């Protein structure tokens, strides 16, 4: 099956930038109510507004291979980048994951995130792949960043959520 790309398994076994670190501007905890998976995530920004740089992103992700690997890729993609760039990556990741296989992703925008293209064919797993990303966007909002120009991740999450 094309879901479990080697690169995904690698990220899930040895996640990059894992663990919760100080200092941080905002901390959020997102839960997938279907399976109880959790992602606690912190962001530390340097600068103001969308030109601020993501100085650090630290997290504690408990979940499936897809959700833990996705958090690892998220950290790779946004640390050291501006909020503007990070939100562009978020949007590209979200677009690919909700494309039902039509969008194979752009490595320039999401790096190892392209390995998750196969997830978009499994609607029940899209939320797993977006758990950390949705938490990140929420953390940016809580840190005072205006995220209104981008698609709201929460709407998307509820679209794919299995209620139990």
């Amino acid at each position, binding site marked *: 099956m094309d*879901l479990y790309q080697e690169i995904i398994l690698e990220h899930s076994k040895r996640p990059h930038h894992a663990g919760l670190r100080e200092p941080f501007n905002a901390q959020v905890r997102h839960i997938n109510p279907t399976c*109880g998976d959790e992602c606690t995530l912190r962001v530390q920004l340097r600068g103001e507004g969308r030109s601020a740089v993501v100085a650090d992103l630290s997290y504690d992700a408990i979940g499936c*291979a897809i959700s833990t690997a996705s958090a690892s890729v998220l950290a790779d993609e946004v640390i050291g980048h501006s909020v503007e760039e990070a939100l562009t990556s978020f949007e590209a990741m979200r677009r690919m994951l909700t494309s039902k296989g039509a969008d194979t992703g752009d490595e320039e925008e999401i790096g190892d995130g392209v390995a998750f293209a196969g997830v978009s064919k499994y609607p029940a797993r899209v939320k797993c792949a977006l758990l950390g990303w949705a938490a990140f966007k929420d953390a940016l909002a809580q840190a005072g960043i205006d995220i209104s120009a981008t698609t709201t991740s929460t709407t998307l999450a509820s679209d794919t959520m299995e209620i*139990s």
Partner: protein
Amino acid sequence: MTEVTLAGAFTTQESAAIRGDFAILSRSVRGGKPLVYLDSGATSHKPRQVLDAERAFYEQHNSAVHRGAHQLAEEATDAFESARETIARFIGAPTREVVFTKNATEALNLVAYAFSNAAAAGAMDGVDPALAARFALGVGDEIVITEMEHHANLVPWQELARRSGATLRWIGLTDEGRLDLGDLDTVITDRTKIVAFTHVSNVLGTINPVAAIVDRARAVGALTVLDACQSVPHLAVDVVDLGVDFLAFSGHKMLGPMGVGVLWGRYDLLAAMPPFLTGGSMIEDVRLEGTTYAAPPQRFEAGVPMAAQAVGLAAACDYLTALGMPRVTAHEHALTEALLAGLAQRPWVRVIGPVDGQNRSGAVAFVVDGVHPHDVGQILDDAGIAVRVGHHCASPLHRRMNVTATTRASFAAYNTLAEVDALLSALDRVPAVFGVAI
């Protein structure tokens, strides 16, 4: 058919005949793989006989029941009330004690809200004070549940406790996944007004000792509510033998349609209870100044009911009765034993729940340490095998068993030993994909 003298598993020929009644079982999934459906604990499939009964209702008798006097209205009402009789017989209950609800969740909420609504001024006027006192709930009173409850038999009681000021307590679990009845007498006390518990765990498969809990509840005067969602479809259930006061189950888990469930309750208790949902059908006399209610079961069936679904559920009861509930139980037991034996040969799999088949039903939850259940489920799905992954609406249970989530296979009468083998061989792909040492 092969002659069977003892209640045993279905023969190959019998299984083939049963499977022939379920059209969906012959479809393929995930690129041409035959469907292996092991998720009947979530919802079962429905045989042609159930679908035909629903279709016949709509094609020949469709009308709003308990309304109008034209011929179709009479026929629809008759079909609905006949369905009630059939379902009542299936669980050994008098017909007037069977209340139709949209599902088991609503049935359990109906009971929980009876306690809340009983607190309103005048709600229990005319009710024998001794009986009314059983529904009076407040600070100092206690509601007892268990740690293995499905959220449907947990959250309504938690909410009732919050609204009433009563305290929620629970019976814990052993590491094996059975109720720990060691401190039953200290959990269920004179302060206990309600004991709500599941007959069969939807995760662990544990069949609970109903009599022991009912005896203790009765000794302290508490009312008992049994969640029978995972027992009525799989075991012969007789409400009189069980001795509980209320029992809830859903139609869609027992080969019946979605959108219909049942609350059974002792008539004197139902007759004392204020309504939950109000409106048409549940009334006796309505004036602008106030309303009097119909007698049970109509008191709890506001609005035009799900007649076609009730008729379908009765057809499901007939179908199960024709198979023979002891045969259904024996067949599912054989599948459960085979699955437990197969899992026991795989030391990298850990069953969450009793590992022997004693007092155990056909829900088998397991984990592969180091691999998330969603990932296990995905590998199985890729092989055409449908199982449930997650916490199966039983988060406290999972927390108690020290797991976030599990993968669960669950059986119905239409499953076969070949499907157990298919599950086991697909499971064998998991260690290689995720690099788990075996």
